């Protein structure tokens, strides 16, 4: 018997976190993601599973509460939107440096600065190229449905603990705010096993104490640590690329789009095909590691590729890097919280790739 529920994307992420067995959520209100904490506070997961929910005094405090909770081996989560995620970058860099697992949800809004509260995808660079200081990577998941907002809480924690690395769920105001049917999964237990090779649980008698830190003042050891991180990221690139293909079998043109833009592109494909333009879609699910190889394999068969993003053209750089020369690649996007219509997207495909 399936458990189905009509939910907002933000609520689905919150329910997903509870059911994925999260031990703690620490957040700070910001539009358009406040429903995450509102849902958790109303749901009282401390009574359902024992999960702790705390409203912090700032995003700085929230991410550092996550850092503390994660250092003990517990499943910790936070969520915010673009300006708040910018504030969290210091903590995210520390989490990556100290190799702590956690789940961070960014329900992106328009920027720069305080920007706007409407949906945007302009945090792509920040998410995939390292928003904080130092050589580190986040595993970045891009949900394009309310169902994925729910499911990626599970996947996110799995990957975070598999690689001992922060996982960022890069959503946007559209996916976060819209309502869709969600098939809920069964409740997973909270964390019960704590790996003493790295978690802080209190030093057991007769064993060494554990230290969680990103600091090592010895440059040669710090380099070794960095090499270890890079090795981990290479493993991640080899094993964790996720993407979805739609109508690519006979496609002559290809959309590359993630999140809400991928949903808009789905409709644009339908409209295009009604006019006889064979368009397909590659939807990256992991933005890091980026599905460079499948994209490179698809590209030579295409007359043109349009990267569709609600930004000035950020992911298109990865599309170009993946494909290289020889294929016509263009970017189309709206900015500042404006959402392109499917008609607009199709129009721009024609303008940028066909009539040119």
């Amino acid at each position, binding site marked *: 018997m399936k458990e189905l529920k009509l939910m907002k994307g933000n609520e689905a992420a919150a329910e997903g976190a509870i059911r994925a067995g999260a031990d703690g959520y620490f957040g700070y209100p910001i539009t358009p993601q406040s429903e995450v904490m509102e849902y958790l506070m109303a749901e009282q997961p401390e009574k359902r599973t024992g999960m702790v929910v705390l409203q912090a005094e700032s995003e*700085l*405090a929230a991410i550092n509460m*996550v850092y503390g909770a994660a250092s003990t081996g517990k499943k910790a989560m936070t969520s915010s939107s673009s300006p708040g995620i910018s504030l969290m970058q210091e903590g995210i860099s520390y989490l990556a440096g100290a190799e702590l697992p956690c789940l961070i949800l960014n329900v992106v809004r328009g920027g720069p600065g305080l920007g706007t509260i409407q949906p945007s995808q302009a945090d792509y660079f920040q998410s995939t190229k390292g928003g904080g200081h130092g050589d580190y990577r986040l595993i970045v998941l891009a949900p394009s449905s309310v169902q994925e907002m729910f499911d990626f809480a599970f996947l996110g924690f799995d990957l975070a603990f598999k690689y001992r690395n922060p996982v960022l769920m890069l959503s946007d105001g559209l996916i976060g705010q819209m309502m869709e049917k969600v098939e809920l999964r069964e409740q997973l237990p909270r964390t019960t096993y704590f790996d003493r090779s790295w978690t*802080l649980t209190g030093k057991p008698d007769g064993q060494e*104490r554990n230290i969680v830190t*990103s*600091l090592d003042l010895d440059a040669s050891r710090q380099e070794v640590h960095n090499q270890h991180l890079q090795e981990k990221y290479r493993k991640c690139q080899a094993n964790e690329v996720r993407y979805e293909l739609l109508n690519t079998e006979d496609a002559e043109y290809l959309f590359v789009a993630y999140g809400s833009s991928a949903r808009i592109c789905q409709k644009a494909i339908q409209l295009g095909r009604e006019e006889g333009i064979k368009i397909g879609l590659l939807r990256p699910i992991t933005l890091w590691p980026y599905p460079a190889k499948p994209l490179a394999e698809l590209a030579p068969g295409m007359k043109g590729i349009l990267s569709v993003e609600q930004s000035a053209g950020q992911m298109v750089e990865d599309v170009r890097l993946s494909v290289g020369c020889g294929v016509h690649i263009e970017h189309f996007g709206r900015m500042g919280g404006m959402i392109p219509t499917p008609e607009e997207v199709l129009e721009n495909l024609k303008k940028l790739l066909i009539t040119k």
Partner: protein
Amino acid sequence: MDIKDIIKPENLVYQKTPLMTDKPLSYCPGCGHGTAHRILMEVIEEMGIQSETIGVAPVGCSVLAYDFMNVDMVGASHGRAPAVATGIKRCWPEKFVYTYQGDGDLAAIGTAETIHACNRGENITIIFINNGIYGMTGGQMAPTTLKGMKTSTSPYGRDIETMGNPLKMTELVAQLPGTCYVTRQSVHSPRNVRRAKKAIRTAFESQKGKKGTSLVEIVSNCNSGWKLEPVAANDWMVENMFPFFPLGDIKVDGKLVNNQ
């Protein structure tokens, strides 16, 4: 009597606690950090809670506190130790959680985290080392630098008009209902060390009793930053720091001590 007859295991009255590691301390000669570390570890040893304790190290001179304290520890980013401790304590309410922070960490960059952790009454213990200066970065002005005090960023003395007033964070957090035990101590003399240790014990007992946040400020020296020899620095501290940062309990069992 021969000294060899005295130095026998059965006559041992004081030795460094095994909760301090054997690693030589990275602090300058005479620095109060070492003494504060040691009495903190002695309290944890005497309470028998080593296996239930998680400490949070700051950024500052004591950034490497985890090298010397033989308990599970995490290094926080600058000023965020109370938030990190909150995350730990909320997930492990039965563990003992403490932060160890200097004045720059606690009273400047981490002011918000300190005040809000105290205001929520997080059941943690905050050890606050106040030497009125940024030691690690080379003796810059701290929020607690005294009026007229010379530092590398107030080379003509702290000018209140342009640089603001020294901040009494401990008195400030004592006003918050979430704090249960707030005190100011020092570690420059045997008597003061013993009192400071007793205060840390009280703080951890408060945590055990789930009474709210406990904060122990230790007014300390910075020989390098103050450009004084260790013993002279302690004398300077008594003469100059204590009048502005008076020693003693500020809040006990959730009640402000008279005149506060």
